């Protein structure tokens, strides 16, 4: 190799030359150098060949449902990583309204079910009252009340 340029420097200039980035004096001096340097002439030629060969390798078409699959994965990922309340907030409006409505209904129902029932007389109390009435009746039978004179007059 008789070229005075060091390999990395030579390659850097070569890439810039092939990319069309060399301008002005740099381009002129590079072209002068290549014209007089068989090593660089060979390098330029072989790199141009390589670029053409590599350009011939084109990848196949991308699947039509790539984006769709990705969004589905993102959605799934969101559901797994979000806290429950954020997941709830991301629901449709219909669901967002339905959930508080159901909660309110449950609260109302709970209020009625759990509120204290009106006081009901126990069987013992009823029995006691009945006994007291019987006693009163017995007392009346033993000591009859005088008849009301107004009633007698009317008769």
């Amino acid at each position, binding site marked *: 190799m008789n070229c005075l340029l060091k390999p990395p420097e030579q390659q850097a200039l070569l890439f810039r030359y092939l990319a069309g980035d060399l301008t002005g004096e740099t381009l002129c001096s590079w072209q002068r150098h290549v014209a007089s340097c068989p090593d660089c002439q060979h390098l330029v030629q*072989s790199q141009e*060949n390589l670029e053409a060969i590599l350009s011939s390798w084109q990848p196949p078409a991308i699947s039509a449902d790539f984006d769709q699959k990705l969004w589905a994965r993102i959605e799934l990922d969101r559901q797994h990583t979000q806290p429950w309340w954020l997941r709830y907030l991301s629901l449709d409006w219909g669901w967002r309204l339905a959930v508080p409505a159901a909660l309110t209904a449950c609260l109302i129902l709970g209020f009625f079910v759990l509120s204290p029932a009106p006081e009901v007389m126990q069987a013992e109390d009823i029995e006691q009252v009945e006994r007291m009435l019987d006693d009163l009746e017995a007392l009346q039978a033993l000591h009859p009340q005088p008849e009301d004179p107004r009633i007698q007059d009317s008769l």
Partner: protein
Amino acid sequence: MLRVQEGDDSSFALLLEKYRNPVIHFLYRMVQNQAIAEELAQEVFLRVYRSRASYEPTARFTTWLFRITTHLALNHIRDRRKHQLLTPIDSPSETFTSIQLADKELTSEQRLLMQARLAEVRRAIEQLPEKQRSAVLMHKYQEMDYSQIAGALSCSESAVKSLLFRAYETLRTRLKHFSPDGAGQKLD
């Protein structure tokens, strides 16, 4: 990306639209299998989406994106090597079909020749060491500059220059028997 960070999904859709093809094409050339390339690309974009909150615009988005992409591709290649499941090149019938669809005017002899040439190009790239391969693919096909490649590969610019120098030298030697006039055809 900053708008994606603020929760704007439509901006993420724009990013996807812009970078979908470069990422998948890069991955395809790295792993040389379209189905795996698409699967890895899904993982790349999912990671981008997940990291949106912690993203800091210290480097160019492309550099950050290709750092993730390269990392996943290299991991996949290492895993594949580890499990001895090397299936680097798509089935010949698949390649042949795509060539037939792309170039109906070619004779069967020309198609075979192109198929052989394509296989050799792919093999030459596949045989490059991992970092050299990544650097060449980013330089040649993604048109990334030295600093971007250095950022994606987490190394210095001078290391990238050295990687590219060695990689192109190897490729020039391995593919020197190809004539340039036959290389103009685009192969799938």
